[in-house]
């Protein structure tokens, strides 16, 4: 079969301020057959989006084609006139962007936007287009297509918006879809549903897909073939099974080893170093970080050569040595567990905490209107000293709300929050300074949590000046250097601005800022989710190491269950601000499960093309928790009418494990009888 897309020796670059040529892509060769799904994976800055756009004949402003060409169905994409390109784009090759919410026009109803796309890309009459639009909305599994078509984009949830974007893209029945991280930012359950839908659609229509993602789990799920990018080059091009079971490039190996896995306890191995600027090294771009490196790697760039069978290509001098080592065995050995002692006394205790964003107005108070159910309600948790408690749940489950209340940024409506002997229910402005010092907060995105106008020294100086006013300048400087070395940066970083640091370095500075205050409790809000996988492991390592040394208590928010598995001692599963299940990591990750935990675990995409997620509950989003009964009632696959929607479920626990509590109407032995272990350890 002839290739639908043929990219040959494509190089794209731009000239920087001083007129030097900087490569973005270098010597890319890639073929895509009709109906084939190719996953394009790589870390941020590896050039995957640029390649995706180049396939559609787009170039970013200022960059240009240095060499090579892209052929799509016989057309040289960079030789076509804009008029000719218009005919191909949308019609034969369509793009599904990362953020559907931003790519849909906010002022036009989604139905009309789809009709527009139908009229533009097909020869269909206007009268027929409407019924086709309804058909398309049905095809992407949106309930009540006629109702959805009349909505504006902001009235749809993120998952629904993404479905509309898919409907628009397939309106012209294109031969090829380019998907640029379409599920990043969606909840795990929604993501699993969208991926399933995409697979079904392309199988039915025979569409080829180029799926761009940084998430190995997603790539494993959708791709027939995987192309791995590093520093503007494709370093390995293999079938999904080959890539995930026995990677032949050292980078592929390192990357796969650095992913936390549900089936393996402990923290994976991190990859040292960072990618170079494409084309800046004389030899192999991966040589400085490669464990297989030899003399030749630093001097001669390796060729992209076929190995084993003709369909697999690798850019490495030593691929034979790499393939020879057994990957599955090695994978198990790289996971390591940090032993740390937890104290018996509880450090933080939450009792019947209720938090509400709703502020009743004067009129509502006078009229005595009933208040809407609180955002977070009935949360009772205790965290032991030196322990890591993970809060788990989808977006809107109240994880961040709870953490912000503990840090005093949000008021709690009722209940009590205690830290040792102090009351944490008071707002941060009214807390004594020493209490502020003991509870520190680390944010998800270091780009936002570090002031871009401060040097690292100024950033670290702020908590020092605030909490330790007795220190003089030199003493503060000494402490800064000490903590920087502790987070494995060095003193020279003091004079840099956050903009001059990489993502992982920035998060280290944010961690250093929290630990320079010598806290007892550190609240971590999704601290690794904005980082690349190879860096994520190193940050988890650092957190575990600091915990062991300072006996710090962590409350750790994460949506990635594999990360939770890697670092947490105990887990609390939340849905709509209500606790569903509390227990140790092992208890949570094995039956009996709360139906919601089971749904979450089932939807996790593991980096293994042979495993398939179990989609148990629908991904219909909920805006507010139900007024009475179980929080999960509307989505629960085991819903019992007359019970679950009326009575608040009781806490149940097994006799031999008092601390493992599940909040469900169904008895635990009944639950575990129906459930099989979702995570199978190899």
């Amino acid at each position: 079969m002839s290739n639908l897309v043929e990219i040959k020796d494509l190089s794209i670059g731009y000239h920087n301020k001083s007129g030097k040529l900087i490569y973005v892509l270098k010597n890319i060769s890639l073929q895509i057959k009709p109906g084939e799904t190719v996953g394009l994976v790589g870390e941020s800055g590896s050039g995957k989006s640029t390649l995706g756009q180049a396939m559609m004949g787009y170039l970013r402003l200022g960059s240009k084609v240095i060499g090579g060409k892209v052929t799509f169905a016989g057309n040289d994409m960079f030789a076509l006139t804009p008029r000719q390109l218009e005919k191909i784009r949308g019609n034969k090759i369509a793009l599904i962007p990362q953020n559907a919410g931003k790519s849909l026009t906010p002022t036009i109803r989604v139905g009309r936007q789809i009709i527009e796309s139908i009229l533009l890309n097909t020869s269909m009459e206007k009268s027929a287009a409407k019924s086709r639009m309804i058909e398309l909305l049905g095809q992407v599994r949106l309930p009540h297509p006629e109702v959805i078509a009349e909505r504006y984009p902001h009235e749809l949830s993120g998952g629904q918006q993404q479905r509309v974007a898919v409907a628009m893209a397939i309106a012209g029945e294109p031969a090829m879809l380019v998907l640029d991280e379409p599920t990043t930012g969606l909840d795990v359950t929604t993501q699993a549903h969208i991926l399933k839908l995409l697979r079904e659609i392309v199988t039915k229509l025979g569409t080829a897909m180029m799926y761009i993602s940084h998430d190995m789990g997603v790539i494993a799920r959708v791709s027939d073939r995987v192309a791995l990018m590093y520093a503007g080059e494709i370093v390995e091009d293999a079938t999904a099974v080959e890539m995930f079971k026995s990677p032949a490039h050292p980078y592929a190996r390192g990357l796969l080893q650095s992913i936390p896995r549900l089936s393996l306890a402990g923290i994976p191995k991190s990859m040292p170093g960072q990618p170079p600027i494409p084309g800046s090294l004389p030899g192999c771009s991966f040589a400085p970080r490669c464990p297989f490196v030899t003399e030749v790697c630093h001097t001669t760039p390796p060729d992209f050569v076929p190995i084993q069978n003709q369909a697999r290509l690798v850019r490495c001098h030593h691929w034979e040595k790499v393939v020879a080592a057994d990957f599955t065995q090695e994978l198990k050995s790289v996971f390591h567990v940090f032993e740390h002692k937890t104290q018996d006394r509880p450090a933080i205790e939450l009792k019947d905490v209720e938090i509400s964003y709703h502020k009743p107005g004067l009129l509502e108070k006078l009229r005595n209107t009933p208040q809407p159910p609180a955002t977070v309600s009935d949360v009772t948790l205790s965290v032991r000293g030196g322990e890591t408690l993970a809060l788990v749940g989808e977006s809107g489950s109240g994880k961040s709300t709870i953490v912000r209340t503990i840090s005093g940024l949000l008021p709690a409506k009722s209940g009590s929050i205690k830290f040792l002997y102090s009351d944490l229910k008071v707002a941060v402005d009214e807390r004594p300074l020493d209490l502020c010092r003991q509870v520190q907060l680390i944010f998800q995105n270091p780009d936002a949590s570090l002031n871009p106008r401060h040097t690292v020294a100024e950033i670290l100086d702020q908590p020092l000046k605030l909490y330790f006013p007795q220190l003089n300048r030199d003493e503060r400087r000494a402490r800064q250097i000490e903590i920087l070395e502790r987070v494995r940066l060095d003193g020279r970083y003091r004079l840099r601005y956050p903009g001059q640091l990489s993502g992982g370095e920035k998060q280290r500075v944010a961690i250093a800022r929290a630990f320079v205050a010598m806290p007892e409790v550190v609240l971590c809000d999704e601290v690794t989710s904005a980082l690349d996988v190879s860096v994520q492991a190193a940050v988890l390592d650092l957190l575990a190491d600091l915990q062991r040394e300072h006996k710090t208590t962590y409350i750790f928010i994460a949506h990635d269950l594999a990360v939770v598995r890697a670092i947490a001692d105990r887990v609390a599963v939340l849905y709509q601000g209500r606790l569903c299940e509390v227990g140790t990591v092992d208890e949570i990750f094995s039956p009996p499960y709360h139906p919601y935990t089971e749904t979450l675990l089932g939807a996790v995409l593991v980096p293994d093309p042979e495993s398939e997620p179990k989609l148990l509950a629908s991904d219909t989003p909920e805006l507010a928790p139900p007024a009475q009964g179980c929080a999960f009632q509307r989505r629960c696959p085991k819903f019992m009418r007359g019970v679950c929607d009326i009575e608040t479920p009781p806490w149940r626990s097994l006799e031999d494990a008092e601390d493992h509590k599940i909040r469900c109407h169904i008895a635990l032995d009944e639950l575990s009888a129906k459930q099989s272990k979702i995570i199978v350890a190899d």
Partner: protein
Amino acid sequence: MTVQTQVSEQKIVIKRQSPLLETWQNLRRSWSGMFGLGLITLHFLIALLSPVIVPHDPLEMDSKNRSAPPSAEHWFGTDKLGRDVFSRSMVGGRVSIMVTVFGISLAMFWGGLTGILLGFLGGWVDEIVMRVVDALLAIPWLLVLLIIVSAFGTDAWIQTLTFGFTYGYTAIRVARAATLDHVTDDYVLSARARGERRRTIVLKELLPNVLDILLVDGAMNWSWMLLGFSSLSFLGFGVPPPTPDWGFMIAINREILATQPWSVFGPALMLSTLIVGINLFADALAKALGLDRSQGAPV
């Protein structure tokens, strides 16, 4: 089991560069910005040195040479009292530049800080103050200026304070809007969670991030203030005669504009070159700071 943690992320040498230096380098690449900066510098030099370098005493009346056209001796001619227009034009900017430079600094200082504080505090304080600002903005600015100046006199310090006050409340709006962009950022939240005082958050966290917008806005407003001062002089509330001033020179010579255009040309040229210079510089500064209009940033 414990495992030695890996040393990660090798260090790469990055040239240390402060944002200020970077802005200057960007600015230097802009031809129009450097031209504007040149004009501003030239005006400052003239204002500073003019008493020494003027060819004639600007107050000296040459009774034989009244209303004379430009000549080798009087480059811009003379006015109806026989005073040298070229010399008067050079000296005529001294008061207005001084008043507006102090005025704009004062305006940006109090307006900027008030705006940031309001943006940070929010709530009913913000609501009340902003409504007062809206009400003040609704009154034509020249009217406000005239009322204050006629009530308190035309002393240069009174004028500076007046300009500083009236232009300050436009700065409040700009600073508040810019602050609202940053106040929800995590670094502000992080400072609050640390228990930092409000003063520290406003001065150390928010001000550095709003400063660039304030600088550009200040430069723009400076040129408006110059025009405002000249208008005031034009109406007779500016510099008391016989001290020369651009606006007043244009005012008294406007009746003879048709017959002796040279008498207005000098001050008009000086005033407009300074304003053009400021505007070019402000535009280039905005671009150098990354606040380009084309990127949708507030300028």
